[in-house]
């Protein structure tokens, strides 16, 4: 059987190469994802080993919110340093602080990172602790007017020693002289972050840490082990403070970043899975066609005594070999994919640190197992069908034509599977039960399978309909193309189904993005009473100094200005989000309907809660709820007001006085500004600009500009999704190439006949081309239908999250169909060339 298998493989090299390509790309995506995220992890690990160099023991408060990857630690009182220094075996101990500090570039614009933090830190004066951040140029900063900058930022911004720079803080911005340029071992910066280093006193002042430390680093005396010293320090501090060895600190920091890498990993793997899923449709299709074409050969094997099991083994063996080879190649492609993904992220402003790519044994195993298993599973159905070929088929005329009769079994099975998929999807989206993500994803997969089963039933009439323009305006080649697209509904359907998946997801994200934009506009129109919306830099979740709002309030043109600060707390052990707001100002800029109490009741502290949350917990105004904060721990906070959902407020509004006590960083994420009545827009804008001039990280937008800005941010994410889904779509088009190439081979005699009776090569090529276009448009249309359904359910499900509007961008979707048609034209090039090259004589004299 081995010999037969191998001969079979080598005889159909080209057909199989195209099939393998689908697996190669899918596996490449999987491998590339792992390579990329492993590389990122390794970079961070190395980096944190570098930055914690020289630290034997580190002391910091416990992180109450680490589970969410959202580190919030309270600073420690400076007096703790004395306690630690007094521990025997401590050679040196030093407190350090870090927080928000953002450089302003020479162009007057804030230096942004595209996601990574903009850090301000205190630099150590203890020689042993200076190994982490090393001087490249100049000297360490001393005194209130000096700063050191990381080498990457210096290079990018053209900062040199003794230059004057402006730096933005939680409080007022400051002017500094650059005293030195810092490196971190071989690295120029900390994984994309910008870094401003100050001496300790300056850092405490500018970073809002007066009399506080974020961390105390300890150097052990000679002969004292780090573990022993750690235990000794632990014995003298209170349990809200954690004591780690330097190595533990590095690992722990890397682990926190690992949450982020894990997220990237899962997100990319989801897209890789889509690519593989599309690829599996192509494998099913190719194997089905090839096995149908080999009916006589297989029947002959049965005639000479091969059993069904042997036929099955033979086909699966072929699949195994293809899967294995493709997976190995895919692994290599994965390295390229990793580099490509990095480039994509870089193009979108997320600069990932670069080291040599990491290929772990796990990556190799996963890639090969996934590739082989997918190939085997996908080939199982065609293989089983092949075993049903009776030996007598060897003696019969070759009949490749599939039956076109409507199969009731197909209708029942397809409808059932689709229904189960829809049920699963709805369960995931609307019922808060089980793992919702698994239900949604599983539901989508099952729906795709169901529609895949049903699609042969509709592919014939649909191809007739979609082929109409070609049949009427593209002459005989167009008519024949339509006939060819209709003649084997199962083949056309499964080729189109692969494209359907890609386009369903593309149209889903497009519809969702449109709905989101429309919803944002509606929320702004309905809920925001402010004239101006102030935000931090684009692509940065960092806020800006609270000084901005303070100074705006003093402007005569301004009626009211309200900053919104973001915070997390724990309620009964689960993490919740809140907005810290100044109640009276907030009430004037955001339209909030209260059902009990009023926002002004929060002036003396307390919390306002959204009505649905109140209902869920059975709270009333006057009740107190136990909230656990990063600073100050648990507190009983009284409910002062209950408000109706306006899609903007979020579930909890905390009075600013309480927020200031419970959070160490005070930055406004958004500020809402309302001009006084009668002040002209020009005058009010001038007033806002006057204040913001000193804070170049603040962007001033009126409502229209803010809407446009939100739309462009949504569009950016949309583009990222398009790029990630592109591979699935490309694989689907490889499927079209593959099917057509196989069909051309199968129809070699027809093509010979057509050529003999006077069809030119060009006409023949357009015949193949229009068939490809019909299949592509068929897949696109199916995809749009499924995608629109997905989009509708998703928007419905996220209604309570503020996505209130459902929008189908008809024009964009139409463009997708046209692009699919165009891609069909491209996909036809290779099969059409092959068709045109067919030797007429050999075609008509075969057999």
């Amino acid at each position: 059987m081995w010999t037969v298998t191998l001969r079979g493989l080598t005889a159909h090299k080209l057909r199989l190469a195209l099939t393998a390509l689908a697996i190669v790309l899918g596996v490449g995506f999987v491998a590339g994802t792992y390579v990329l995220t492993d590389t990122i992890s390794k970079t961070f690990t190395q980096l944190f080993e570098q930055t914690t160099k020289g630290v034997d023991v580190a002391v910091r408060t416990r992180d109450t919110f680490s589970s969410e990857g959202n580190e919030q630690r309270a600073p420690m009182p400076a007096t703790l340093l004395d306690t630690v220094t007094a521990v025997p075996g401590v050679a040196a101990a030093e407190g350090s602080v870090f927080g928000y500090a953002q450089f302003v570039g020479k162009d007057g614009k804030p230096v942004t990172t595209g996601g990574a933090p903009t850090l301000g830190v205190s630099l150590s004066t203890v020689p042993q602790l200076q190994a982490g951040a090393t001087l490249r140029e100049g000297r360490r900063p001393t005194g209130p007017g000096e700063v050191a900058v990381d080498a990457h930022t210096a290079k990018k911004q053209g900062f040199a020693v003794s230059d004057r720079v402006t730096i933005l803080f939680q409080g007022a911005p400051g002017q500094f002289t650059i005293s030195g340029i810092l490196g971190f071992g071989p690295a120029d910066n900390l994984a994309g972050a910008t870094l401003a280093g100050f001496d300790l006193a300056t850092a405490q002042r500018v970073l809002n840490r007066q009399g506080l430390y974020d961390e105390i680093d300890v150097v052990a005396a000679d002969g004292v082990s780090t573990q022993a010293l750690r235990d000794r320090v632990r014995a003298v501090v209170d349990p809200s403070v954690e004591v780690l060895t330097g190595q533990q600190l590095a690992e722990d920091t890397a682990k926190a970043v690992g949450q982020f890498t894990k997220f990237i990993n899962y997100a990319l793997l989801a897209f890789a899975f889509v690519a593989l899923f599309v690829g599996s449709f192509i494998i099913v299709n190719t194997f089905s066609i090839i096995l149908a074409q080999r009916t006589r050969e297989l029947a002959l094997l049965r005639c000479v005594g091969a059993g069904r099991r042997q036929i099955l083994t033979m086909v699966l063996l072929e699949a195994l070999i293809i899967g294995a080879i493709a997976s190995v190649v895919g692994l290599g492609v994965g390295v390229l994919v990793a580099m490509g993904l990095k480039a994509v992220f870089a193009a979108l402003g997320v600069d990932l640190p670069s080291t040599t790519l990491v290929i772990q044994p796990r990556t190799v195993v996963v890639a090969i197992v996934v590739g082989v298993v997918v190939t085997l599973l996908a080939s199982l159905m065609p293989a089983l069908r092949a075993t049903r070929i009776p030996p007598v088929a060897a003696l019969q005329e070759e009949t490749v034509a599939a039956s076109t009769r409507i199969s009731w079994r197909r209708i029942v099975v397809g409808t059932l599977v689709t229904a189960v998929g829809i049920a699963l999807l709805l369960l995931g989206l609307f019922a808060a039960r089980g793992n919702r993500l698994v239900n949604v994803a599983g539901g989508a997969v099952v729906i795709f399978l169901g529609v895949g089963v049903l699609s042969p039933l509709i592919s014939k009439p649909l191809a007739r309909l979609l082929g109409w323009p070609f049949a009427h305006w593209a002459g005989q080649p167009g008519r024949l193309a339509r006939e060819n697209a209709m003649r084997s509904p199962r083949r056309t359907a499964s080729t189109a189904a692969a494209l359907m998946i890609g386009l369903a997801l593309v149209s889903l994200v497009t519809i969702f993005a449109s709905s989101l934009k429309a919803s944002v506009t509606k929320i702004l129109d309905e809920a925001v009473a402010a004239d101006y919306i102030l935000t931090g830099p684009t692509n940065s979740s960092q806020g800006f100094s609270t000084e901005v709002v303070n100074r705006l309030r003093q402007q005569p043109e301004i009626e009211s200005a309200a900053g919104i600060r973001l915070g997390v707390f724990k309620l009964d052990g689960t993490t919740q989000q809140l907005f810290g707001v100044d109640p009276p100002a907030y009430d004037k800029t955001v339209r909030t309907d209260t059902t009990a109490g009023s926002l002004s009741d929060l002036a003396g502290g307390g919390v306002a809660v959204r009505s649905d949350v109140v209902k869920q917990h059975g709270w009333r105004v006057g009740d107190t709820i136990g909230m656990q904060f990063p600073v100050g721990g648990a507190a009983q906070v009284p409910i002062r007001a209950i408000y109706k959902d306006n899609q903007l407020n979020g579930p909890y509004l905390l009075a600013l006085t309480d927020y200031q006590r419970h959070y160490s960083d005070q930055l406004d994420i958004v500020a809402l500004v309302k001009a006084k009545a009668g002040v002209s827009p020009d005058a009010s804008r001038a007033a806002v600009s006057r204040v913001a001039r000193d804070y170049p990280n603040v962007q001033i937008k009126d409502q229209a500009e803010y809407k446009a800005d939100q739309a462009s941010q949504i569009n950016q994410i949309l583009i990222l999704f398009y790029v990630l889904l592109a591979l699935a779509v490309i694989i689907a088009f490889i499927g079209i190439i593959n099917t057509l190439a196989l069909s051309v081979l199968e129809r070699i005699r027809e093509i010979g006949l057509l050529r003999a009776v006077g069809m030119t090569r060009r006409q023949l090529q357009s015949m193949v081309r229009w068939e490809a276009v019909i299949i592509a448009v068929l897949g696109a249309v199916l995809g749009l239908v499924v995608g629109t359904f997905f989009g509708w359910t998703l928007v419905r499900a996220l209604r309570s999250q503020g996505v209130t509007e459902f929008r189908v961008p008809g024009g964009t979707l139409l463009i997708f169909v046209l692009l699919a048609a165009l891609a069909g034209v491209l996909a036809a090039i290779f099969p059409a060339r092959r068709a045109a090259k067919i030797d007429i004589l050999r075609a008509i004299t075969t057999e």
Partner: protein
Amino acid sequence: MSDGTEVGTRGAQVARAVGVSKIYGSGDTAVLALDDVTVGFLRAQFTAVMGPSGSGKSTLMQCLAGLDRVTSGEVWIGDTELGRLSERQLTLLRRTSVGFVFQAFNLLPTLTAAENITLPLAIAGDVPEDAWYNRVIDAVGLRPRLAHRPAELSGGEQQRVAGARALVSRPLIILADEPTGNLDSKASAEILTFMRRSVDEFEQTIVMVTHDPTAAAYADRVVFLADGRVVREMLEPTADKVLDSMKRLGD
């Protein structure tokens, strides 16, 4: 050229091969398939080409059709010498001036009988002339079967559809390669009668390669090939005379 039926006169030469040789391969493996063949075909004449297998009769047919290029010599269809034509011009010539009937697989399975008949015209972007189309359909006796697809037609019907297709574009010449090869004697008689009528009633020129003396007996003339050469011609053949000649050729 497509209007040859109107302008030409019975007995004029519509196709000819002049000193045609065809060599397949090269060097030691070269095979001489046609060796200096000169043969002409007259308007409204039904010619059968016969010979043992390997005699070059199919090669001659393919060279006449412009499906294959000759190694030396000239092939003329009407006033056109095929050697000078580009690939595209050859295709257009086949479309307008040559009709084909093959032994098997003459029809596109996706098209109905009617669509198959008008296929060459449709490829050219033409519509059939109604009167002529109806005459052809009636002559071939397929009117009740026009909406059927090839799979629903008998072998004989399929070959008659192919014959009608060849005739409907009024080519200068119809080339038939073993048109009865896959048929029983009744179906064979049907298609041969149809071809005979095409010649007699429509003044069509037909060249048919066959190995069946009964089929050859329907022709006006038989050309015998052996080893790539024309070895004999016979006018007004009968099955017996043809069989007799074939036997002697075999000797």
